């Protein structure tokens, strides 16, 4: 089997900064903030009131409907307020604010292993739903929805995504090294739901220790194999990972389940294992603080709701004399820049990258007209023609953009912008055009209904 996809880029990894840092459990001291929407789907509904006492692991907002997720408190203390706060995306959102008493008293027994012998598939899905687990790779799609496809027998692969192709991020690497058995057990639990599926753990070759640990943990498991992936961005994208395993791309209009795949981040699988085996809901997760600007790059197990500034200060803050250009939630390719550091970490925040050299700022100085050199076409993992898309977008020829060039298939991985020698803002344009086209369609639909 091939170990990679066509296209892609290889940005400098910078993983050495933090790859040997063990995952430390972080104990925040300040107030904790829990946005009601940390996932794709409807925001959760609060089930606590102001001044209510809460414990770590307690449900504080419950899912509103099927495509939604529970929000769990990660500390013990008292609810201070339920109000609009700035969140990591920069938007103001309804949040539950908890005064942290620093005790982290658990709401239940998360140390004793439950008996799994009588466990049914429905119970597994139910525990995952109760635990408020969402995709920890970054998108935050509710996992219990993912685990309930129309036809479970049509699922042929359950893929554990340990590619971690974003530069700087190393928390999944550390997680796989230290929690390999637990991740494999989480994968086995998911495989119970899909009798015809094979478990595949995809890991990029730049993580030999993680590969060794996962292979050891998977040894003797008939339904599970570890796949070594070529080190290339965006190898950890859902589309590209599925492409390597299935051997073909699928359009964005389809879900992975439509082509027989369920993809879960290794962090998500670890959370599933904790939830099913120990009854522990999702309120901590792996996170890397790295970048050239930070004094001590670290990997953490961090409680949700932790203040970003507090976390950065725990890593020694910004280097003496260094000019911090950007703090990114996630890695430098798909992460987004923070406008404010006093925002809480949410379930999907898997990294904080603090950079000294802003590629966008440099690029704006070097920008020239498009050369039509075709590098964007070569690297596009989806097989699009970004230079023609940019031209169609410039002319606002959305018909050609959507129907002839299939521009809506863009997954916004950023490879085209990364490689562009003329430093055109390609990915940015495509995100805007996609939003514009979808808005127009909604408007047309609304108009049609009247």
């Amino acid at each position: 089997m091939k170990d990679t996809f066509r296209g892609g880029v290889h940005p400098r990894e910078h993983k050495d900064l933090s790859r040997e840092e063990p995952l430390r459990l972080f104990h925040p001291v300040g107030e904790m903030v829990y946005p009601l929407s940390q996932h794709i789907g409807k925001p959760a509904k609060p089930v606590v009131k102001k001044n209510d006492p809460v414990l770590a692991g307690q449900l504080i907002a419950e899912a509103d409907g099927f495509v939604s997720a529970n929000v769990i408190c990660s500390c013990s203390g008292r609810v201070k307020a339920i109000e609009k706060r700035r969140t990591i995306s920069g938007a103001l959102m309804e949040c539950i604010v908890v005064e942290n008493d620093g005790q982290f008293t658990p709401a239940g027994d998360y140390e004793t292993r439950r008996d799994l012998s009588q466990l049914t598939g429905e119970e597994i899905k139910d525990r995952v739903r109760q635990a408020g687990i969402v995709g920890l790779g970054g998108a935050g799609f509710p996992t219990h929805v993912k685990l309930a496809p129309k036809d479970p027998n049509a699922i042929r692969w359950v893929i554990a995504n340990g590619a971690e192709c974003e530069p700087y991020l190393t928390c999944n690497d550390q997680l796989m090294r230290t929690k390999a058995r637990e991740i494999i057990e989480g994968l086995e639990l998911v495989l119970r739901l899909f009798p015809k599926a094979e478990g595949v753990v995809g890991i990029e070759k730049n993580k030999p220790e993680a590969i060794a640990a996962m292979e050891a943990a998977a040894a003797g498991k008939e339904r599970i194999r570890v796949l070594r992936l070529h080190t290339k961005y965006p190898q950890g994208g859902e589309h590209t990972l599925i492409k390597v395993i299935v051997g073909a791309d699928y359009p964005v209009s389809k879900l992975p389940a439509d082509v027989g795949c369920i993809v879960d981040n290794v962090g998500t699988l670890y959370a599933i294992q904790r939830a099913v085996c120990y009854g522990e809901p999702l309120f901590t997760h792996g996170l890397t603080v790295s970048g050239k600007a930070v004094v001590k790059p670290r990997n953490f197990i961090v409680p949700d709701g932790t203040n970003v500034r507090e976390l950065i200060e725990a890593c020694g803050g910004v280097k003496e004399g260094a000019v911090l250009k950007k703090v990114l939630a996630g890695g430098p390719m798909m992460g987004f820049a923070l406008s404010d550091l006093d925002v809480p970490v949410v379930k999907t925040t898997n990294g904080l990258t603090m950079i000294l050299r802003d590629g966008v700022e440099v690029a704006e100085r070097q920008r020239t007209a498009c050369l039509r050199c075709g590098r964007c076409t070569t690297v596009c993992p989806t097989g699009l023609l970004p230079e023609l898309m940019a031209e169609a977008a410039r002319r606002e020829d959305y018909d050609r953009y959507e129907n002839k060039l299939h521009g809506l298939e863009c997954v916004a991985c950023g490879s085209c912008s990364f490689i562009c020698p003329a430093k055109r803002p390609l990915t940015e344009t495509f995100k805007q055009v996609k939003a514009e086209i979808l808005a127009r369609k909604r408007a047309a639909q609304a108009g049609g209904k009247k």
Partner: protein
Amino acid sequence: MNQKLNLSSGPHVRNYWTTRFIMLVVIAALLPATLVGIFVHGLQALWIILAAVIAAVATEFVFDKLTGRKDTWTDCSAALTGLLLALTLSPSVPLYIPILGSVFAIGLVKCCFGGLGKNFINPALAARCFLLISFPNAMTGFLVDGVSAATPMEVLKSGQVVNITRMFLGTSNGVIGGSVLALLIGGMLLWAYDVIHGQICISVLASFTLFIGLFGGQGFDPAFLAAHLCGGGVILGAFFMATDYVTSPVSRLAQTIYGVLIGVLGAMFRIYGHAADSFSYAIIIGNLFTPLIDTYIVSKPYAFRKRALQIHGLVHKKTFFDRFPKPVIAIAIIALVSGLALSGVFSMTKAPIEKQERAKAAAAYQSVIPEASDFSFLEEKVSRFAGEKYGTAFGAVTINEAVEGKDAAGKTVGYAVSVTSKEGYNGDLTYIIGFTGDGTITSITNTVNNETPGKGSLCKEPGFTGQFSGRNVSAFVLNGTGDEGVDGVSGATISSKASVNAINAALDFFRNVVKGGD
């Protein structure tokens, strides 16, 4: 930690390749050919290159200042255009040629259409064609040791054998960037590092070779094909001109179609056209097709391609015809049909055209040997000199044909020699000179004359041609006195000199070859 943070959309890291870096890489890839050019053709080549590059950059600089644009001259693309233009010029051109060409390329073709990335044809090639049309003599004059001579392409066109090794190394008379070896080294490096699109080079060269092989008249003779590939800028065109990013299509299939178009057109112009050195036109026509190709030939994303659909069980199994991409079949058929049609037309019209030309020639011969009713061509005697410079004393003169005129009884009544001087004021001057058996000139006709009207054009008037009739000398002396002296046309020294040289060459040829049996 309370500094202001930048807010912008990702990706937040970028590759180190910039526009300027790419331009410098391509310039570096052209350096071997440039250095060989300077080495072979001397310092004059260096001055031409410098003039073209400096003029190109200066034009862009001035344009930037005039229009208040960001300084685009610093991106080195203008320098690359200048260098490419210089490499397509003869090393003997005067310096105003590269300067004018660069100003045209950058000022008109590039900047006026919006600058980098917006020109619709390759600026260097457009400038070359502009120069070819405006200064045909300077542009097609190639000097070897200070004497003008035919280029390998002209020799090849006339059906002669050329020295491929010299063409390959770039030591034969031709353009500055004529070293195929050096160009290949640079081109291959660019290809290896993915700077240029390999499929364009392959499809251009493959379709060109195939077409020349099929319709070139000499089959797939390796020496013949190699001579065609090494000459007339095919390698420079395929690796550095056709692959120009701005004027070539985007998707792979579109690039292949574009390459095949250029290759086939280039070969067709080569075989059927009049200009031996016509690859530039083929590339320019390819450039003009690029927007059209880009509009209609776009590749689908991987998820919509047949293979992906098959794997997901959305289309039927492969049939026999599915194995060949349809556009490839279509192009192959179009190329074949147009090629066959062309060669059909060519062979159908070949006989009538030849007949007509013979009749025209016969009329000319008739006029100088009025008694003759039948002409036999002395091909053996001429073929030894065909296409080459005749003698050393007559400048760039070639002997075209020689005939023996016979009357109805089959008795020889005279001879005629057709001779061309390439050193007219404006190109070729061709004369037909009639002789009696003892070498007395019966009369002279001037059949080709493109000289200045009222000056050099008078060379075809009886006032000039009449003075040679009835004389029998070994050589004429222009403006001389005595037996050998003839008068030139006043105000047309160059035309007169070339004419007398041509006539003297014919005299020499008649005495020493036709009669002398040399």
